[in-house]
């Protein structure tokens, strides 16, 4: 996984539709460890993939259906996913706040129409951020996706909005 050269490659964790921020990290665990995101890690995807944090490998990619990340504004949700080692998420579409939060912390999210339907758990996926392409190597399917708006791409390539502002100055947005 190297966002630096715009290409991400990894093994797939397949999820369904409507994965809410509560599925990612439930409110009770968030508030129990509100002062330290790291302590929430064992509860990431608790009800969806029990024991996820012990099974995930650095660079893995989540592929999901529609409305990924719907629900609360909790930024802990994408931060935990990134902390777990997940390198990108491909889904049919994302909830608005989750999308912003992920981009802001430098976690690439890709909206794709075909890949979510044809991808299974364990497939190998390659994402080319600059060419706006997602490739399921296992199934030998290539999908051209909508390019990122320039600002969003700038945020991602700088590793998040805070880094973008540090690197490029306060007029970068």
């Amino acid at each position, binding site marked *: 996984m190297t966002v630096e050269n715009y290409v991400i490659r990894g093994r797939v964790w397949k999820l369904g539709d*409507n994965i809410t921020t*509560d599925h990612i990290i439930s409110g*009770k665990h968030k*508030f129990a460890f509100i002062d330290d995101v790291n302590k929430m890690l064992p509860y990431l995807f608790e009800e969806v993939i029990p024991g996820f944090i012990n099974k995930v490998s650095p660079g893995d990619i989540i592929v999901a259906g529609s409305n990924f990340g719907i629900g*609360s504004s909790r*930024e802990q949700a994408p931060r935990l996913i990134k902390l777990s080692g997940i390198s990108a998420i491909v889904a049919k*579409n994302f909830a608005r706040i989750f999308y*912003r939060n992920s981009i*802001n912390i430098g976690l690439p999210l890709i909206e794709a129409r075909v890949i979510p339907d044809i991808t299974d758990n364990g497939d190998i996926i390659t994402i080319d951020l600059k060419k706006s392409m997602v490739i399921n190597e296992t199934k030998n399917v290539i999908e051209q996706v909508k390019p990122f708006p320039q600002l969003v791409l700038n945020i991602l390539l700088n590793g998040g909005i805070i880094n973008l*502002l540090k690197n490029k100055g306060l007029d970068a947005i």
Partner: protein
Amino acid sequence: MKKELANHTMTEQILSLNVGRKVQPGDIVTVKVDLVYAHDGTAPLVISVIKDEIGLERFEPKTIVAFFIDHVAPASTVNSAEVHRKMRLLAKNNGINLYDVGRGICHQVAPEEGLVRPGYVVFGADSHTTTLGAFSSFATGVGSTDAVVAMLLGKNWLKVPEPVKIKFEGSMQKGVMGKDIALHLVGLFRAGSMTGKSLEFDNVDSISIDSRMTITNMAAEVDADAAIMPTDKKLLNYYRFELGMEVEHITPGPRAEYADTVIVELNNLDPLVSAPPNVDNVHAVTEYEGVEVDQVFIGSCTNGRLEDLEIAARILNGRKVKTRCIVIPASIRVYQKALSMGIIDVLIKAGCVVGPPTCGPCVGAHLGLLASGETALSTSNRNFPGRMGHKDSKVFLASPATAAATAINGKITDPRGYL
């Protein structure tokens, strides 16, 4: 420019006036943020981004910044107490308005304090920030990092959403409330269907300010970027008499163009419930009548306002609840008004537990969590599995009228028999 925008939607008017040029849906623009806020659920990351990622101890906020201690208030754990302490310290050192334990829920307190006005662009680090659209503002929910950017720069980027018009016709029948309109819209549109869109409401005259806030609140459930009510006489009077303020008028132009228009016949609406496990699983209350519940919760940023407590008291007056019934006013001001009107007395005599202003059990943090196998009927806004407690607990969402009637019988009950 105002003249130029006379035939545009409220979304386009507010954002164009803010940016200083005519914008249209799909444009990525940098907006001046008039108000930004966070609470004890989102402020911990705000603080860690400012201190650890940026390395600032002190800064000059470039806009109005407010912190609300409302999610776990008063603190129920040492961890939440630590968060509250950090929030107080950062607020004190950096000119942030702090609304401490007991003041109330952010989306209720911000308008009470006059922090939002028609035409404002608001970034709130909470998904239900859309609530403030009831005050003709473009109010949108964001995460902690977005809130930090708005605090430090006084600006942030957004994609201009595509406006969708929702026109009300007629008026609601007895026993039907703003919550039923909100649930109807969530059931109609489905969860997550309005990403990238703003909802604009038309013909809202018959709807109270409290109910308007309930409707814009639940726009978050369809993932709308914002939900905007026009400035009308009722809103102007609210500002004039409650706050002593004269404000801008934001109304759509007669020839404003919308991506879609939906008409809601208010006369035809029944009391509704959202049945577990999804918020858009919306049905007439009559379909679920008789389902036993272990707990009723009346409160939250959706339905902890005076109108909500008032109707609950009207239904519970002289009666006793059969199930535990937790009532939590959304703010101390609501609490005081309810006290002076005798509402709290009626609720206590009926057997309700009345808590201090806080988000309470809505978010599964404190003051009434559910055990495995338990069912609640709640006036809040979400019913994902585990939202209010154990993963095997269930939550039905409904209006305060339906909640009060349900508390009397210990079973889901149509409120119309009690009014």
